[in-house]
């Protein structure tokens, strides 16, 4: 058995490193496509301002991308360093999408991102556009494969336990790839990324408009972000609903906890809009319910019942009892591997093996489990209600805020009057962080809602870690937090610096601030002014008109 502090610290470390990683991923996903759209417009119209847009937003994309790669390294290795038993137990299935991600997606993204930044002068217009699309496709493909791996943790299909190797093994690759949970999760997650990218471009552009600088540049960026953002926000919400449907099918415990469904309701169940869940008394205070809606989302029918926590606990208690038989049968089989009789006995009950393992948290020999231990294991099997209930509602609330932002932005962009709507622009600026919060909350609901399992119904979290000491984990956790925070500070510093500098950072001599004396780049001022002269010679009007496009 592994000490509980090691399990908790491992979870904390994974959560921290995953949350950090996902500060950068959504922006990469969203901006890579926004860049591709901007560059497509450039290639189609030939207007240089769209190339400058691609380059400038590309610079911000690059600042973010570097940390996405950095924090992603940890994710690729962390399963081995901190979740050794997990890696052994499910590596046969889980490792494949990770390795395929590297071969199919990450190579594509990383090789072409180099050409995206450095290939402008070496590639034809269409050649460079292709490169930009390949970066976008690579980053999105990457998301597909990672989410396939994650979906398998939520809904482990296409796999079976092998008592000889003591691990789960793949029985169907196609089940793994076409896991229904993976599909809704993928579209939900990348749409969330597109929303994040759009909200970022929208907000920064709105800030330029509020300051009255780089109007032409910001106006065009705002429009693109508003349209792309609107489509993505709708997709996030629709596919969030689809995820809810799959959660009802595959992870009843998560859904019941998220919705604080203490008791099974007659179909179709109502949706709790608001309330204060009370874990101790198993009730929700001040509940506001919309009748029928939950049943419709969860079952796509009016007659199927969604089980509440009371009913789920009964089912789990029964599975734990069978699970004890499975664990004991496996132990006997391990001592006498050639015995066909033991194998048949184990095979009959192996579907509940994971539930028997839940007891290992309390007792090494599960047949010695007391009724009290079993009751605690049943209790463990339902994730804590309040954190899920609140995170989910906060996420949905935020998504409604940015949906309305995009609807209004799109509406006023279509009527070409958004530049006068200062309240809208301010809303866009202050709305920049919201999609990030929603993304992190979404992951929290997905992963915390999977507890107490790493692989739902198969492998409990408390058995999944490496056999490390708590001291080692304190050391590594502090190290990760220290390095990540340092890097995040550097990232934010550069993000703000370059967002403030705006397209002038490209040094084309066409944008705001470019003739004013600058403290930035002070020591290359001489070189800049030479470049400026060259640019001015090429475009006679450019040196004079900084607030508009000639």
């Amino acid at each position, binding site marked *: 058995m592994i000490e509980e502090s090691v399990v908790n610290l491992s979870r904390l470390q994974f959560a921290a490193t995953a949350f950090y990683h996902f500060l950068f991923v959504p922006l990469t996903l969203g901006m890579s496509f926004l860049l591709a759209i901007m560059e497509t417009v450039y290639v189609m119209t030939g207007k240089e301002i769209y190339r400058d847009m691609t380059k400038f937003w590309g610079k911000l994309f690059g600042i973010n991308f570097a940390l996405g790669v950095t924090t992603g390294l940890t994710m690729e290795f962390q399963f081995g360093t901190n979740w050794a038993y997990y890696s052994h137990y499910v*590596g046969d299935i889980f490792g494949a999408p990770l390795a395929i991600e590297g071969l199919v997606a*990450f190579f594509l993204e990383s090789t072409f991102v*180099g050409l995206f930044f450095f290939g402008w002068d070496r590639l034809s217009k269409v050649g460079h556009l292709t490169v930009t699309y390949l970066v976008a496709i690579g980053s999105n493909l990457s998301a597909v494969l990672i989410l396939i791996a994650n979906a398998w943790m939520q809904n482990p299909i296409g796999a079976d336990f092998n008592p000889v190797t003591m691990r789960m093994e793949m029985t169907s690759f196609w089940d793994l790839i076409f896991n229904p949970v993976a599909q809704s999760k993928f579209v939900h997650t990348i749409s969330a990324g597109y929303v994040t990218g759009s909200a970022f471009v929208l907000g920064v552009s709105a800030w330029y408009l509020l300051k009255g600088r780089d109007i032409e540049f910001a106006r065009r960026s705002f429009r693109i972000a508003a349209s792309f953002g609107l489509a993505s926000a709708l997709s996030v919400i629709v596919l969030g609903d689809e995820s809810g449907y799959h959660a009802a099918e595959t992870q009843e415990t998560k859904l019941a906890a998220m919705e604080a469904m203490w008791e099974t309701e007659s179909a179709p169940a109502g949706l709790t809009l608001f309330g204060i869940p009370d874990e101790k008394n198993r009730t929700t205070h001040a509940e506001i319910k919309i009748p029928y809606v939950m049943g419709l989302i969860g079952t796509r029918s009016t007659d199927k019942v969604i089980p509440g926590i009371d009913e789920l606990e009964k089912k789990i208690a029964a599975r734990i009892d069978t699970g004890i038989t499975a664990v004991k049968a496996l132990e006997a089989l391990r001592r006498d591997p050639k015995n066909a009789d033991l194998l048949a006995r184990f095979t009959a009950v192996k579907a509940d093996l994971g539930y028997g393992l839940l007891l290992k948290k309390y007792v090494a020999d599960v047949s010695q489990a007391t009724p009290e231990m079993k009751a605690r294991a049943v209790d463990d099997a339902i994730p804590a209600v309040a954190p899920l209930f609140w995170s989910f509602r906060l996420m949905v609330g935020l998504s409604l805020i940015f949906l309305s932002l995009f609807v209004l932005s799109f509406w006023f962009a279509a009527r070409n009057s958004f530049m006068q709507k200062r309240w809208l622009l301010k809303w866009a600026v202050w709305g920049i962080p919201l999609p990030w919060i929603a993304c992190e909350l979404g992951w929290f609901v997905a992963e915390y809602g999977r507890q107490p399992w790493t692989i739902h119904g198969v492998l409990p979290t408390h058995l999944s870690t490496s056999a490390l000491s708590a001291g080692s984990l304190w050391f590594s956790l502090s190290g990760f937090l220290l390095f990540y925070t340092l890097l995040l500070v550097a990232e934010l510093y550069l993000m703000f610096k370059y967002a403030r500098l705006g397209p002038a950072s490209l040094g084309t001599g066409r944008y705001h601030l470019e003739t004013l004396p600058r403290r930035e780049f002070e020591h290359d001022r001489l070189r800049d002014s030479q470049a400026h002269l060259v640019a001015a010679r090429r475009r006679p009007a450019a040196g004079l008109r900084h607030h508009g496009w000639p």
Partner: protein
Amino acid sequence: MGVGTLLPFVGKTDDERRVVLNSVGPHWEGNQVWFVTAGGAIFAAWPLVYATAFSGFYFAMLAVLWALFFRPVGFDYRSKVADPRWRGFWDWGIFAGSAIPALVFGVAFGNVIQGVPFYFDDVMMVRYTGSFWALFNPFALVCGVVSLAMLVAHGANYLAIRTEAAIQKRAKASSVVATLVMLIGFAIGGWMIASMPGYLITSAVEPGLAQSPLDKTVIVQSGAWLSNYSKYPLSILLPVLGFGGGLLSLLAITRGRAGLAFVATAVAELGIIFTAGVSIFPFVLPSSSQPGSSLTVWDCVSSHRTLGIMFWVALIMTPIIIAYTSWAYRVMRGKVTVEQIRANDRSSY
């Protein structure tokens, strides 16, 4: 890795360092994916090796990861602020992010060759019983030095192709030094391995069957790591390639043939890495405390189905990856000069 390690030494001024960085600027990111994918491939192919090595070498892996953090960020952030302190900080960050992983991987491999103290408990949970400081023993350090030196030699030869004038001159000198260190280290390592205890499987081996690593018996015998060279005589070519590649690189670089030297160090690297692999074959991770728990290429693999899928994916994708990576190098070919960096001040690293 080699270029990153050399950065503070072959580039004396800021402009020179930017030349060095930009010579790999468009490519380091894609190249680094080989490293990440290697981790993923081990996970998919030998889950137990992934689990045992990464959790056993916990602090070594942390050192690698934390050092690596400074590479992507260093490349991308260094030239975005003009302050020399900022740039100096990232120069050393990139140096650490390149040299430490190269060194630690060599040290880790040196320990693998000697056997690592671990065993499996009754539910196949791996327990590592060694300490972090025990990793730094003479043989492992020699391996670390060889690993670092061969990457530096290769990086120096690359720089000799892609740069000119002072930087190129320093790169060539570094190549000579690094190649010599690599050759001497490789020779010392070979001499040490000959008398070192190696591992042999004494029970019948049935490759291709689902099996547990605990079902075999293993003995420890001095000099056993050389037995493969008598069993498979052709494998002696591998250490020959290691030495030959190094010598060819020395000859080529001193005669100004940087391209040939680059190919030569590539050959030397292959020779050296495969020499290590063949020596311990079929072991992947021998256990020094319970030799019977050692992991071999057969008994810790993934299922037949998973390996089949990975085989096809790798067979199709690897040539495609090599093709577009080569294309990317072709697009960006030619010397990187100080003048180019100055002309593209805002878009260069």
